[in-house]
């Protein structure tokens, strides 16, 4: 690759124009005003941003709001709640939920990183953290499925409950995959969408498997 040997940032490439995110730019007087505001306002602003993204995931339309101002609060909250709910599913009660929690955490984040790297290697135009953000937020339907499964399991653990859980988890898995595909596949060249969708499908399949096979103690 001869072009790689002499890559350097020449002065006339408008790098700053491309990299700075318009929403994230803080003019000096804005900084002072957000420093002086009460903590409740700051928290509410972040919560509203996270909530708006949740709504975007539940009703996936082709909007770029999820991509433009990415944040990782939502994925963290979802991942932690999913891992907490999946804890205590091991039959050995001496085995504490420690490995289970770490397992879910590692699988979600490692899987998201691998999918992001894959989509970048296939020629995607989305940035690393934007992709992590989208994949993390699209775990929301599966977290809802986990809640429903736990409630169903409270009622009993027979065949009927298994069928209900299977249907719910399957539907949420399809929703997750569709939602993340709606955001991520657009950033790929059109003929390679299938190559990017497949690992996402596998990723959510593994998470759905973990949810479906959860048996409380």
């Amino acid at each position, binding site marked *: 690759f*001869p072009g*790689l040997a002499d890559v350097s940032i020449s002065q006339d490439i408008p790098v700053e124009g*491309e990299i700075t995110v318009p929403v994230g730019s803080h003019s000096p007087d804005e900084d002072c005003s957000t420093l002086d505001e009460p903590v409740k306002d700051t928290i509410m602003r972040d919560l509203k941003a996270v909530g708006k993204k949740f709504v975007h995931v539940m009703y996936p339309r082709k909007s770029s709001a999820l991509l433009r101002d990415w944040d990782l609060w939502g994925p963290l909250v979802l991942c932690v709640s999913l891992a907490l709910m999946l804890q205590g599913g091991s*039959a050995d*009660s001496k085995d504490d939920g420690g490995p289970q929690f770490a397992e879910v955490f590692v699988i979600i984040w490692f899987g998201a990183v691998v999918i992001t790297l894959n989509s970048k290697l296939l020629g995607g135009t989305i940035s690393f953290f934007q992709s992590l953000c989208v994949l993390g937020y699209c775990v929301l339907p599966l977290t809802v499925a986990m809640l429903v499964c736990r409630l169903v399991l409270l009622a009993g653990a027979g065949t009927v409950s298994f069928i209900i859980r299977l249907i719910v988890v399957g539907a949420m898995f399809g929703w997750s995959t569709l939602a993340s595909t709606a955001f991520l596949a657009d950033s790929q060249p059109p*003929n390679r969408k299938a*190559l990017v969708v497949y*690992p996402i499908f596998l990723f959510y399949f593994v998470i759905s498997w973990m949810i479906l*096979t959860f048996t409380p103690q």
Partner: protein
Amino acid sequence: QGGGSAVIDMENMDDTSGSSFEDMGEMHQRMKEEEEEEAEGEAGAGEEEDGEFLGMKGLRGQLGRQVADQMWQVGKRQASRAFSLYANIDILRPYFDVEPVQVRARLLESMIPVKMINFPQKIAGELYGPLMLVFTLVAILLHGMKTSDTIIREGTLMGTAIGTCFGYWLGVSSFMYFLAYLCNAQITMVQMLSLLGYGLFGHCITLFVTYNIHFHSLFYIFWLVVGGLSTLRMVAVLVSRTVGHTQRLILCGTLAALHMLFLLYLHFAYHKVVEGILDTLEGPNMPPFQRVARDIPVVSNAVLNTTAKAIALTL
């Protein structure tokens, strides 16, 4: 084309990493220009002023230059770190340059042994297909745990599944590459990875079918037919790239043995590992190699009783 994509990547770099790099560059540039102006100004004024006065001004200029240099070093270090990260990705980029049609064609080809072994067969040095196949194999192994209803220690099983599949793919590829180097075969590491990875397609099919339909004889048929076909293909490709009977024998024998034995191991070892854990927990009541779906409440009750007994014994 590679250079173009590297530049585009730098532009798409997210705003949290390396954002100070451009600022450093700009600041350094500005400081350099300022110092040049200062130097010119000093040079102009120094001729008229006292020598010692010039010395103090010169010292201040030096301090400023040092600080600017330090900041430039920090910025450069950050930039080189960021760039090496991207350079690593760019090294892998050509191996992911595939179309879905190509992947499908290669998957089907991996089951068809080639007839011409007299001149070297082409191996596509592609890593997307093999990587996806390894992940699919991991998912199928996990699915196999579920359908055999043995969910004792999920965490350990999952880690084992991922470790086994990746360990096989990377380890056996490296070993075969080493053997190929000894036997003078014309194959590169990426090609070896690709060949072995696509050979896992047969494994995926076999395990997917036999984890859902639990018949020993069915598994053996699949093992021979599907595993055999993919082994034959890999062996034929390797033979076409090696000269000398002994070398061909060594290479192909090793590859065939490892490939087929891995499939056997995947089918039997996981059932046995999991059933071994079950046996130790439940005692001699459970018959070994039971392929019917286990009743989870019974199992968990038995486990609870055993653990309660064990705790009572220790107290």
